[in-house]
């Protein structure tokens, strides 16, 4: 068979059911092999959208996402999505066509050095120069994408390799890797247990690494057996159930006041699969200033990178969390955190008739069927979703965390809907973000995907405008989007019905109409341009120095 056929056969053999992509000249042999294949290809309307769909697929399912693009512009259009997957540790395999090796390096049509471009945005990247290496390389790509700290892997395949003849014998049984016995770090675990037992104010700081290690159950057991307050990063929302009384919410720049104050006051910070990101820590030197740190991660490079840990462990959280569990002695601290949680609870008694986005999102959250997936874009609405919606599992909340990529939400929702066809999938977007990958409405139309789209529209690039208001003397440079299109008409052009609302009393009936409609639906929610996200830790400030609405 030809190399191109081997690519598809290998995807079939690996159990890949869905891939996302866009064809072009240098990848035509692979698309030809795909024709009538068991692998279902979803034609997106832009390669970036296709890769974000693969990311949404991976994040909502725990499987590897796969996307394809042609050489040159097809491959360069993948770059942002690869960077997004790298910073959020998403297992993704991107396959790109490349011009034939005979013309490589001659500035041939649609030739660009994809391997060179990929260095900074992938966990690893391969170029296959000999068809006999193709099978091994693709297998390595899948293994690498999922192993250790997951991430994106790119495989660039020149056209002559796709067309070359090669032997391929499909394996009847998948290789099953023997689980290696992991030796637990006994001394470090003993040190961790002592730190936990002796702590008067311990707190668990939980990151996306917990659910990526498939350790959500172990984490919940740990918190039950070693009671302590917990906070999560944006990526870890849903790891601790909202019913846990000592869960204080998200920490960081737009975290809850209770979460930030508790972390600043703690004497032991147990960092689990998180990385002391600057949006979490605020002023790093003043972050949890009195705390000793236990840091556990699968990636050795994260330990001591930004904060020295008294006790650092590399390993599998599924093994380490049970081994670290000991009774805590912090009753007064638990009571104190409960009081802070009550004192700083959200308020939804916003005056007037106009829609208050936090309340609308709380109502949306309460109306969602169980196990729904919520995809976000980036900006004010993203932070409001994190603050005011509840999640039962981190795979139900897809948000571009590390890279903060506008345009993520709509294509990610497409991937999530395909990965979980029985679950409701909602994308909450802003008017700025939505327009960045709006072309994917065409993909929703083509595949009749019942994605629900909520656009929170303040006719501004709201988060940038908020910073201009607070930190740039109200000089609103290039953040006015008051010439937005009519979003309901735009959706109608793709045969997607919609409705526009601007008053509080319209919210519940509109949500009901959206969720009872059997197909895709767009709900356009007008909000006031003056609404801001609170609290906010100003840049360079310590996390206890949050700005609140009342203080303005």
């Amino acid at each position, binding site marked *: 068979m030809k190399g191109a056929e081997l690519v598809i056969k290998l995807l079939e053999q690996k159990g890949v059911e869905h891939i996302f992509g866009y064809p072009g000249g240098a990848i035509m042999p692979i698309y030809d092999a795909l024709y009538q294949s068991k692998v279902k290809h979803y034609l997106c309307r832009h390669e970036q959208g296709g890769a974000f769909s693969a990311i949404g697929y991976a994040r909502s399912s725990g499987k590897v996402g796969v996307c394809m693009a042609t050489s040159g512009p097809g491959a360069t259009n993948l770059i942002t999505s690869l960077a997004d997957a790298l910073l959020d540790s998403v297992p993704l395999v991107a396959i790109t066509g490349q011009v034939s090796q005979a013309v490589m390096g001659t500035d041939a049509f649609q030739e660009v050095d994809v391997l*060179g471009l990929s*260095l900074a945005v992938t*966990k690893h990247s391969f170029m296959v120069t000999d068809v006999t290496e193709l099978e091994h390389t693709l297998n390595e790509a899948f293994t690498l994408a999922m192993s250790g700290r997951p991430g994106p892997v790119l495989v660039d395949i020149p056209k002559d390799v796709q067309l070359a003849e090669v032997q391929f014998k499909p394996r009847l049984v998948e290789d099953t890797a023997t689980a290696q016995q992991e030796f637990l770090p006994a001394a470090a675990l003993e040190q961790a247990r002592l730190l936990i037992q002796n702590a008067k104010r311990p707190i668990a700081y939980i990151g996306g690494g917990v659910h990526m290690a498939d350790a959500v159950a172990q984490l919940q057991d740990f918190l039950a057996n070693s009671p302590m307050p917990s906070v999560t990063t944006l990526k870890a929302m849903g790891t601790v159930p909202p019913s846990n009384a000592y869960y204080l919410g998200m920490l960081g720049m737009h975290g809850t006041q209770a979460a930030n104050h508790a972390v600043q006051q703690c004497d032991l910070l147990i960092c689990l699969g998180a990385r002391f990101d600057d949006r979490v820590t605020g002023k790093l030197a003043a972050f949890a200033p009195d705390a000793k740190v236990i840091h556990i991660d699968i990636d050795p490079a994260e330990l001591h990178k930004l904060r020295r840990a008294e006790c650092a462990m590399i390993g599998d959280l599924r093994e380490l969390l049970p081994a670290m569990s000991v009774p805590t002695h912090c009753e007064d601290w638990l009571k104190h955190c409960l009081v802070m949680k009550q004192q700083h609870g959200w308020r939804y008694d916003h005056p007037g008739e106009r829609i208050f986005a936090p309340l609308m999102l709380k109502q949306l959250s309460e109306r969602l069927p169980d196990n729904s997936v919520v995809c976000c874009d980036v900006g004010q609405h993203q932070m409001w979703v994190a603050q005011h919606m509840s999640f039962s599992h981190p795979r139900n909340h897809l948000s571009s965390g590390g890279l903060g990529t506008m345009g993520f939400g709509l294509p990610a929702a497409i991937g999530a809907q395909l990965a979980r066809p029985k679950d409701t999938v909602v994308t909450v977007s802003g008017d700025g973000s939505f327009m960045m990958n709006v072309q994917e409405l065409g993909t929703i139309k083509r595949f009749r995907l019942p994605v629900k789209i909520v656009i929170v529209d303040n006719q501004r690039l709201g988060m940038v405008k908020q910073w201009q208001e607070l930190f740039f003397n109200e000089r609103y440079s290039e953040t006015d989007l008051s010439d937005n299109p009519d979003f309901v008409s735009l959706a109608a052009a793709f045969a997607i019905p919609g409705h526009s609302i601007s008053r509080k009393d319209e919210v519940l009936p509109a949500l009901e109409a959206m969720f009872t409609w059997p197909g895709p639906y767009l709900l356009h929610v007008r909000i006031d341009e003056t609404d801001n996200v609170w609290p906010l830790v100003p840049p360079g400030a310590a996390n206890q120095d949050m700005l609140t609405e009342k203080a303005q």
Partner: protein
Amino acid sequence: MSNHVLTIQTKNQPVVLERLLQVTRYRGFEVAGMEMKPMADFSGLLVTLSIVSDKPISLLTNQLNKLYDIEFLDCVESELTQAEAGSMRA
């Protein structure tokens, strides 16, 4: 400012030098010297990097050790020569 010599054995891949240099630059370390030669059986490359930085060298070696193409990495602290120190300040 400290000076370290990294001795690195890599797979014999054309892109491996770019990877090493890209990670070194991105993580905020400066290359004061570099040598590369293929191993005797051409199965891999031996690369020696002289690195100057005011950051802990582990912040770089931990990142380099994650690279798929790296098979062995050894790090030794060394004296910063007058010439190297001058060239780094230039």
